[in-house]
């Protein structure tokens, strides 16, 4: 028991040292970052955060990120729920092949699709919009979510569907008032993964935006300018980008524990 | 095999745990003789499983002692107690073959491979598992898995006792009978000390020589199946054992017998003048009925009849009182009729303050 606690403490320590370092760097002055090696800021400064909050570019890029991530979560779930239902309930020609083909898209490296995406979205006139990024992220989020939800739905006996139809439920009403509540934990887990992968993605988000929909992850790389790297500014933007993630994990932690235990995640 | 004894045993779950308060087992004394088949019978949540886990050492009791052949084993770890345990859900090592499953405990004891082989072969023969020797245990059906986990328990020659925790729960009804027969046969051939936990009275009464009834963590009665049937120590046992359970009639002592509360029924010929709360217990099997009037018998109305193949169960009423009687299928009656009823005194038990009174 004791050995376990020590191992665990050591692991969490190593896990959080780099994050701690970023947090304290964000509170240091540029001079201190470059000239000394301190485990705690000698002089705490909020200058970096002030700069971010007063900058129109930073604010709008935060908003852009949240917009396309939420759009992606909604799009993915809307498509994935019926698809997963079809895979879990019916056998049809080519179902296994289709399922595997969907999964292969999760494997597709974003770098491969960078150029064709750009050309396609120019053509469709949605380049540099939130929709473009949200659509592109379906590439990897949709297959994963279908996979997760299929696992959850297969765990629910078909008899439930049949009983409901015998009881005179029409399909839409059955789906909404009986089936969806049953797989709520699965939807929670799926949404969590969609949020995660869309929030952290960089390559496509960068390739598909210029100014209008530029996400915060891209704005961050811009901080590396010609006049030298502004480490403090980068670090504070990094801290701010982590916060939504932490909030999400915090709120879904119980769902996660339940979902992880139920489905095959 | 060994004799197993529990002395003034008590167990309480962590008191900080919400929802559970007080003792789950309280001041319990019992002994199971070497080489006997025993059952622990009681409703779900009465502490049966806790008791088993205390014997095997998976749980340390709060107080009291566990004795194997008169030696206290409280401090002996599970692996040194040499207890075999069969759980409710079959537990096998999925990735191993049936042979390797049975050899596993022996290998853990660092026995020689030749010795292991002959012993495992012997056990497989006994349990009729030989054709499955090379099958992966993960591919067996639940009944076969349950036999394998029994085999793993008895393969060691130093096994002290075999504990079975509701072992038939997940088995198909058809295979249940077969598996129970096999258990009983193995028990007799190897002279095993077996303790079989169940909430199913039928399983307990057909399997064991000796049945212990547990309720709320304490023993209500420990006796042979016959004794439990004829002389249940409390109205609870009487009701719990038998189908349908014993009739319990609250009564008052009168000069020439008993008067049953809530009705005009009276029973003569009993030693009078008793104090305390009195109950009469009579099994439906022993209630005698007659369609014609008999002197000294009581007249009751048939409210309902349930046919159960070779017999039928009558629900008789008189005022607020309700009595079940089990009569032969040839008895011609119909609902709404009146019958005359007698309670033979040698088959009727008297309970004073909830305890069987010797008359």
């Amino acid at each position, binding site marked *: 028991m004791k050995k*376990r606690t020590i191992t*665990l403490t050591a*692991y969490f320590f190593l*896990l*959080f040292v*780099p*994050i701690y*370092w*970023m947090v304290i760097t964000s509170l240091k002055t540029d001079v201190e970052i*470059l000239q000394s*090696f301190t485990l705690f800021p000698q002089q705490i400064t909020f200058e970096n955060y002030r700069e971010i909050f007063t900058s129109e570019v930073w604010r709008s890029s935060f908003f852009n990120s949240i917009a396309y991530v939420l759009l992606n979560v909604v799009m993915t779930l809307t*498509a994935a729920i019926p*698809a997963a*239902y079809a895979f879990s309930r*019916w056998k*049809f020609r080519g179902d296994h092949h289709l399922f595997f083909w*969907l999964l292969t*898209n*999760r*494997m*597709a*490296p*974003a*770098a491969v699709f960078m*150029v*064709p995406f750009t*050309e396609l979205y120019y053509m469709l006139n949605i380049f540099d919009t939130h929709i473009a990024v949200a*659509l*592109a992220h*379906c*590439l990897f989020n949709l297959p994963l979510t*279908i996979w997760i939800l299929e696992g959850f739905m297969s765990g629910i006996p078909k008899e439930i569907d049949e009983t409901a139809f015998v009881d005179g439920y029409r399909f839409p009403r059955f789906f909404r008032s009986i089936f969806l509540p049953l797989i709520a934990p699965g939807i929670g887990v799926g949404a969590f993964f969609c949020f995660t992968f869309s929030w*952290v*993605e*960089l390559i496509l988000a960068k390739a598909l935006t210029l100014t209008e929909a530029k996400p915060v*992850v891209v704005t*961050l790389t811009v901080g590396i300018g010609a006049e030298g790297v502004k*480490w403090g500014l980068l*670090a504070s933007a*990094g801290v701010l980008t*982590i916060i939504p*993630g*932490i909030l999400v994990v915090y709120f879904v932690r119980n769902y*996660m524990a339940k979902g*992880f235990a139920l489905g*095959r*995640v | 095999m060994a004799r197993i004894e529990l002395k003034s045993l008590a167990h309480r779950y962590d008191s900080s745990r919400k929802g559970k308060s007080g003792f789950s087992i309280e001041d319990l004394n019992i002994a199971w003789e070497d080489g006997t088949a025993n059952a622990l019978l009681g409703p779900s949540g009465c502490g049966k499983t806790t008791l088993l*886990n205390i014997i*095997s050492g*998976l749980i340390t009791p709060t107080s009291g002692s566990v004795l194997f052949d008169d030696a206290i084993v409280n401090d002996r770890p599970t*692996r040194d107690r040499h*207890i075999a*345990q069969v*759980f*409710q*859900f079959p*537990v096998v090592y999925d990735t191993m073959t049936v042979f390797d499953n049975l050899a596993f405990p022996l290998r853990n004891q660092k026995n020689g491979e030749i010795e292991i082989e002959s012993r495992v072969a012997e056990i497989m023969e006994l349990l009729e598992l030989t054709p499955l020797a090379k099958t992966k245990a*993960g*591919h067996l059906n639940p009944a076969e898995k349950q036999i394998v986990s029994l085999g793993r*328990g008895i393969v060691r020659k130093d096994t002290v006792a075999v504990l079975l925790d509701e072992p038939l729960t997940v088995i198909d009804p058809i295979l249940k009978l077969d598996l129970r027969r096999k258990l009983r046969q193995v028990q007799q051939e190897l002279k095993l000390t077996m303790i079989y936990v169940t909430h199913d009275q039928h399983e307990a009464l057909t399997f064991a020589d000796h049945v212990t009834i547990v309720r709320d963590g304490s023993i209500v009665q420990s006796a042979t199946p016959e004794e439990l049937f004829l002389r249940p120590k409390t109205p609870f046992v009487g009701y719990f054992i038998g189908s349908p359970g014993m009739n319990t009639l609250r009564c008052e002592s009168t000069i020439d017998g008993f008067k049953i509360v809530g009705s005009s029924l009276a029973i003569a010929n009993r030693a009078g003048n008793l104090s305390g709360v009195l109950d009469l217990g009579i099994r439906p099997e022993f209630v005698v009925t007659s369609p014609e009037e008999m002197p000294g018998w009581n007249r009751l109305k048939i409210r309902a009849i349930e046919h159960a193949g070779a017999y039928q169960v009558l629900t008789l009423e008189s005022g607020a009182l309700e009595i079940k009687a089990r009569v032969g299928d040839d008895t011609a009656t119909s609902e709404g009729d009146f019958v005359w009823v007698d309670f033979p005194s040698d088959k009727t038990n008297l309970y004073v303050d909830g305890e069987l009174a010797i008359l």
Partner: protein
Amino acid sequence: MRQRPWLFLLPTLILMSISAFIPLMAVINYSLHTIFAGSAPEFVGLQNYADVMSDAQFRGALIRQLTFSLMALLIEIPLGVAIALCLPRKGSGVGLSLVLLGVPLLIPYNVVGIVWRLFTQSDIGVIPRILSLVGYDYNVSLNATDAFFTILLVDVWHWTPLVVLLAYAGLQAIPQTFYQAAEVDGASTWKTFRYVTLPKLRPVLTLGLLIRFMDSFKVYSEPLLLTGGGPGNATTFMSLFVARKAEAYELGYAGASSIIYLYVVIVMSYILFQFINRSSEERHR
């Protein structure tokens, strides 16, 4: 009635054709042409594929990539299981542990880049400063070994929590009686792990293996931000290689290498996928 499944799949098929199928066709199309900015594409058949296969740089990147993914899996899977075994099974520690484990997973790739640049940068980083105390001159922009293992370290840091979460979910699903039976049978700690825990974890671990294999094969932002693929080509992994070619507008060449790259991932994942299906069938039996 026979069309019903397809009706349910329609939204997915539409989305996937926009975000996967059409772009993939475009990539295949590029791969069959030689494309120069300003002039019309010229059809060259499989010439690009031949060029890619005989390109030592491509082969180098592929081998480097396989080495990297293999090492990442060999470290992350056992480490993840070990940590999961240490986690509390119930009580107030569970929620906290899950939250802590979730944090690294939700850090955007380029913030991971920032975190680790602050940590490894030769002028301000923590690692070079500590290692210089023991006389080691750590430098990711000069030393190829340092660079490679730094990227590996970042991947392990970033993604082991995912394996921990999966393994933990698997552990929670193992009924307690299996451990009691092993104890009764006198099994040692190692044997209990080997014959109870590991077989029960197999499906969930195969899944973790699959996800981690696919994702580690796509590693892109970390080398881009930390080492720029260098020094030399020491950290030029597949994605970076392809992206470089695409940025240089060698679209035919980039397309062909993308397709080969995708083929390798799919084949290897397919093998793992079959493995999962088999083990889950065994479970249902």
